[in-house]
């Protein structure tokens, strides 16, 4: 099973490698990982997508908590949350496909952020399903390159995650 975890860490040098090293050293998977500062400059938030059965997930959460620089682990299996991902998609845009590319972008509320002679770069944000859907559609026109951020997630409702 696939799961999302939020990890609040002290903004210390090496903290990311402690988290990453934990996963590689213990044979856990990381599917995606994003990290950035929170409102508190001393604290960063990592959103991590991982896979594992119940026993492995329990171990992952416990091991993360055990790291000295980890302040808090939010297990999104236990709370309602919203998650988003952004993709930058460079799609072929020749005379006969430009209109279609733009139409698809609009339907998905994407934005064209760069235009070249033979391609558009499209920015689109959404949950995984939405990103996958636009990728499927655009692939018929010819995708040159895709860069995705990986998920970020936040608990719904009142302060549960990034505020300490």
């Amino acid at each position, binding site marked *: 099973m696939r799961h999302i975890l939020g990890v609040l860490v002290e903004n210390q*040098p*090496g903290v990311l*490698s402690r988290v990453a090293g934990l996963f590689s050293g213990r044979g856990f998977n990381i599917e995606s990982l994003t990290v950035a500062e929170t409102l508190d400059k001393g604290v960063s938030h990592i959103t991590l997508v991982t896979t594992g059965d119940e026993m492995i997930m329990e*171990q992952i959460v416990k091991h993360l908590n*055990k*790291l*000295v620089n*980890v*302040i808090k682990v939010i297990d999104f299996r236990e709370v309602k949350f919203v998650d988003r991902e952004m993709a930058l998609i460079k799609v072929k845009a020749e005379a006969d496909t430009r209109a279609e590319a733009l139409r698809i972008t609009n339907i998905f509320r994407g934005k064209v952020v760069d235009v070249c002679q033979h391609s558009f770069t499209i920015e689109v944000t959404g949950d995984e399903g939405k990103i996958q859907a636009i990728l499927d559609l655009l692939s018929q026109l010819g995708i040159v390159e895709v860069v995705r951020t990986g998920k970020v997630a936040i608990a719904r409702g009142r302060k549960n995650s990034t505020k300490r």
Partner: protein
Amino acid sequence: MKLTGAQIFFECLKAEGVEVIFGLPGGVLLDLYDEMPKHDIRHILVRHEQGAAHMADGYARATGRVGVCLVTSGPGATNTVTGIATAYMDSIPIVVFTGQVPTALIGNDAFQEADIVGITRPCTKHNYLVKDVRDLARIIREAFYLAHSGRPGPILVDLPKDVINTKTEFKYPKKISMKGYKPTTEAHMGQIKRAYTAIGKAKRPMIYAGGGVISSNAAKELKQLGEQLRCPVTTTLMGLGGFPAPHELWLGMLGMHGTFRANMAVGNTDLLIAIGARFDDRVTGKLDEFAPSAKIIHIDIDPTSISKNVKVDIPIVGDCQDALKKLLQLVKESPIDDLEKVRKPWLDQIQKWKETYPLAYEQKDNLIKPQYVVEKLYELSEGKGIIATEVGQNQMWAAQYYHFSEPRTLLTSGGLGTMGYGLPAAIGAQAAFPDRLVIDVAGDGSIQMCIQEMITAVENNLPVKVAILNNQYLGMVRQWQQLFYEKNYCATCLKIAPDFVKLAEAYGALGLRAHKPDEVESVIREAFASPKPVIMDFVVNPEECVYPMVPAGAAMTEMLLA
């Protein structure tokens, strides 16, 4: 007043009550060593930094306090890695200070630069690179606190040269605040009650205790619990000494080379009470068949140890001593009815197992049996020695035949299985207890891995007694070759060996040898009587094997008995 990093370093060690450092200097540490004589601290100069780490570890295991070592950058630092990993696997509190190139040069492949913080990240509980002298006091304070609190472990602090010689205002932080570090030490009362209910229902309960009992100083409570529940007790290698071996409820060690009765008990128990142990594969054997009919209670300070490989029914996170005290309170408040009668069939069964296959060997009058040497060491030291071991058969015979009764009297590399650990660990313990008898039960292979520390023992008047069970083999590996590889003794023969007696003499120690069983006792007596470090070379039966043995991957009850 402003102090240099070097001065702050020593002020902090003083505040932490450090009495001895094991170390070896180098370029980036010159300022620190220059400052050292002005402070009231003992420095023991090692001959290899692996030795320094093991000495700090041996000191820590024997005393329960934090062991400290100090080494230079680059090769000095990398030489400690085996010692750090050894302490990490066995949860031993040490602080390793490493010199580092000046901060401005870090990352430049400077002379004697190594990314030791990166290298040791997976084998320390936590580590630090001090980038600013203003952080130094806080970091040292945190390092000591982290080392001994919660689940103990090694901490490394990397000290760049410029941090050591820059001045700043010194204030030793009274309080520690680490947002991300709050170990659970108090056991949850609700869980303790659940555990006691299960204990009340059990017909064939047993206690399986590990190193956590030693590190939380809970041996007294363990004994009380065993007695008050009339519950037999086994321990892991790391737990030996946590329960007195001569006790009627003592099952002996369990696991790959555990006793027949301990392993049979695990196979038949209906309630396994695990205390400060971590279900290591050398203990569980084949996982599906480990304690197949048992409910499992697991007390441990580290939540990651619980349900890691064996599903636990009643987890209790907390300090072992705290948990045991709470359990004992419940026993006192509501004792189990007819305890004697309820337990009798189970204890009778265990007695039968004990009589069927006791630990045994036969000492004939030609070749010395290694087990006999260990028993003689036990006898002649009246069980009062601090025993360090190397790794291999020597370690298992020490575990089986030196009947440990007190915690902190066995120093052995359980988790990592580090050959070369024993001699420096013994030296570390002897530095803490100059008047006690400290013995390294060694193999002829292992002893050569840190033999250079003999001179450290001689120089510092640390009269450790090394007893080499010289079987002229890397014996434990040879045993596997004998049993599972048709005696293909590839690369395990050590017949070409140094003369250990002469070697001892070359170091200025005493060298003694025994070839015959009837020489064993007099050699040991002479060694114990000597004020010097001693190497005893016991030429033992080369093809002796350690039994019982559970082959790797087999169930615990499938033991080879001879």
